[in-house]
């Protein structure tokens, strides 16, 4: 294991977060606060409780999941796409590093940043609502697994993308709608039966539901199904990344 290379990539990627501290930390805190003001205070005053949980508290897992998914994908996709775009990728490709080491460095850093942001949102939420976490270990497991698997997905996206439009099209056109329609801000019980069935085809619903269970022990789908789903997604992404490096797809002509 080329541990020095893993550390070099990891530290290099984390340094970008430090350089853009305002954008990296202040922005999610502000956005989360806005969500609480709009959804928690304005809408929450009309929807008192969902499944026995105050509306403001109900949306916290959804907000964390929204941040985890979008940040994991954007961090990892940008992390590998930008060196491709600027040409500095030559150094990683000519270095004595394996696929696993490259992934550990890039994806590890992207996931770390997303996890830090998720925890910042959790802390920010505590200023607005009374926070209760029934299963903190399961919560952490969900956060880590989601950050890792979606960072891997973002990494795949960054390798696949050959322009900035492609880089942003999947998060904008696929992930954001899935998150908003995945029960982040509502319970699917509130939907008509047809839309409840359609919602079950949305993978993000399983993530939000699983994370919400770790907080309040309420869920739309079984928590173990959610955990199994995200684990399978993680393995699929790992296999895809391995395949990309083995064949040199869009990296080594």
């Amino acid at each position, binding site marked *: 294991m*080329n541990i*020095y*290379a893993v*550390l*070099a*990539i990891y*530290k*290099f990627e984390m*340094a*970008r977060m430090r*350089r853009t501290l305002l954008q990296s930390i202040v922005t999610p805190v502000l956005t989360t606060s806005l969500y609480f003001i709009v959804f928690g205070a304005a809408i929450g005053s009309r929807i008192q409780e969902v499944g026995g949980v105050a509306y403001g508290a109900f949306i916290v897992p959804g907000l964390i999941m929204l941040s985890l998914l979008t940040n994991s994908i954007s961090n990892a996709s940008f992390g590998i796409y930008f060196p491709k775009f*600027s*040409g*500095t990728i*030559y*150094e*990683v*490709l*000519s*270095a*004595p*590093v*394996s696929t696993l080491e490259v992934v550990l460095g890039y994806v590890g850093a992207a996931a770390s940043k997303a996890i830090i942001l998720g925890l910042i949102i959790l802390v920010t939420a505590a200023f607005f609502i009374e926070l209760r976490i029934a299963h903190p270990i399961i919560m952490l497991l969900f956060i880590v697994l989601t950050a890792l698997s979606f960072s891997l997905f973002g990494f795949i996206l960054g390798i696949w993308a050959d322009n900035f439009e492609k880089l942003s099209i999947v998060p904008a056109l696929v992930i954001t709608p899935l998150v908003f329609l995945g029960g982040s801000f509502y319970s699917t019980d509130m939907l008509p039966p047809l839309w409840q069935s359609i919602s079950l085809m949305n993978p993000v619903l399983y993530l939000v539901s699983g994370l919400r269970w770790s907080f309040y022990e309420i869920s739309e789908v079984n928590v173990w199904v959610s955990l199994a789903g995200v684990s399978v997604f993680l393995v699929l992404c790992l296999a895809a990344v391995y395949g990309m490096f083995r064949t*040199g797809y869009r990296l*080594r*002509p």
Partner: protein
Amino acid sequence: MLIDTPATGSTILSIQELSKRYAGGFEALKSVSLDIKAGEIIALLGPNGAGKTTLISTICGLVQPSAGRVLVAGHDITKDYRITRSLIGLVPQELTTDSFETVWNTVSFSRGLFGKAPDPAHIEKVLRSLSLWDKKDNMLRTLSGGMKRRVLIAKALSHEPRVLFLDEPTAGVDVALRKDMWAIVNELRASGVTIILTTHYIEEAEEIADRIGVINHGELILVEEKRTLMAKLGEKLLELELFETLKQVPDSLAGFDLELANEGLTLRYTFKVSQSGDNAIATLLDALRAEGIAFRDLHTSQSSLEEIFVSLLDQTAVESASESAS
């Protein structure tokens, strides 16, 4: 990891029938074979698109070979990529740097990436040798093109490679910096590093290389010691300024490659550099004396590597044209 590297003079890089055909069908390398000795400087010359960068990129792991193999210090670049890549440093043609990183951080990053433990003393030595020490805390975006080129060399040297690839190291740099680069290359050679450089500048190859390889259309059409190449293919020109106008070259001098210029007042004699040792000039002067042809002055000039290179490319173009015609 301790890796045995060949002693100076023995083969450190062996390219064996290496071919590369890109997905679109373009054949960038056609069965290229070449052995490079430890401690030598070899310059690869060739026009744009000849395959020089593809050759370097394949050896360094940036491009996948279609056929053939490459050994670095006896290790296969595909099977033993960890060993071979740790022995190689690459300075790419493009000035690709992370704009917002400092010189120190980016060079330290490269050392880590290539599996070496942090060694601030070595990084300092590299930066000082490249006159970058004063700039160590500067962000890369604030550096000039020449300084960025030095940073790329520093990055490539950060992990103490035994083989250094310089892809067009002086492309787009001014004359002063080019000479600095040549001095750096000579220092590296003195420290035992094997250097393979590609260049468009013939004078660069002429100045610093031990051997010259010429690549055209993906084929290595010639590899030769620089001096041997110049002696074998180079020509010398002797110009004699005559006292009296000569209307035509006398028949007795038909054995010499002579031509008249300057309305018969200049006699030009072209001969191979390799003939110099055969008293080519003395023989001609004796023949002129016998004919009673007197001259007031003479001077000689030798064809440059550039002229040799152009004539080689012309020769291959003619050969391939006649092959396709037949």
